[in-house]
């Protein structure tokens, strides 16, 4: 089945230790998104790619970076995680329609 895959599902990192979360898709969609979702809150958009064009949200901290080496893969890099960065990170894709398709998420714990 075509889908959005996120690895790992659970990630534990230490305060200040760089961490990378990955997302891949078999849908061949040209738009990919990264969201941060904290407990009992709505997803918050961090950035999105339209093909290779990177679009950062104005309030996304500089600590968060992203890479999209090809259509299928997108990475979220957190350069120096703080305790406040503990959250669920959701990857999503979109094609020519308007709906977004979400992966299962990566739960990040910062110790």
């Amino acid at each position, binding site marked *: 089945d075509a889908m*959005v895959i*996120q690895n790992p599902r659970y990630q534990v990192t230490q305060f200040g230790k760089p961490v990378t979360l990955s997302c891949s898709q078999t849908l061949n969609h040209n*738009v990919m998104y990264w969201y941060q979702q904290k407990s*009992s*809150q*709505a*997803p918050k*958009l961090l950035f*999105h790619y*339209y093909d290779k064009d990177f*679009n950062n949200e104005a309030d996304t901290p500089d600590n968060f970076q992203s890479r999209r080496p090809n259509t299928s893969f997108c990475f979220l890099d957190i350069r120096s995680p703080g305790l406040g960065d503990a959250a*669920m990170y*959701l990857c*999503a894709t*979109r094609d020519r329609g*308007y*709906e*977004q*398709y*979400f*992966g*299962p*998420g990566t*739960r990040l714990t910062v110790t």
Partner: protein
Amino acid sequence: AQSVTQPDIHITVSEGASLELRCNYSYGATPYLFWYVQSPGQGLQLLLKYFSGDTLVQGIKGFEAEFKRSQSSFNLRKPSVHWSDAAEYFCAGPSGGSNYKLTFGKGTLLTVNP
């Protein structure tokens, strides 16, 4: 500002009872709108979508939603709730005039009592 609002943070219903989750929107033109469901520890799954045309939209898992322009609402309904419907439900619409970004309501947590 263009947005969607979910006025109910938490709703509890008994299994087998009917369900209506509220979503209000604030857009100048007719927006496209979505309902997503999120089970604990999972990603968001699309339940249904409205773009134009028929104002009563059928979705997966027996859900439907009705777009009412006069009330600026897009409420989600299900005639008989199952215990497996317990989850967080998010209404979503376009964000900031962009066709590529969504804004989500704060979500409604549904609890189903046996």
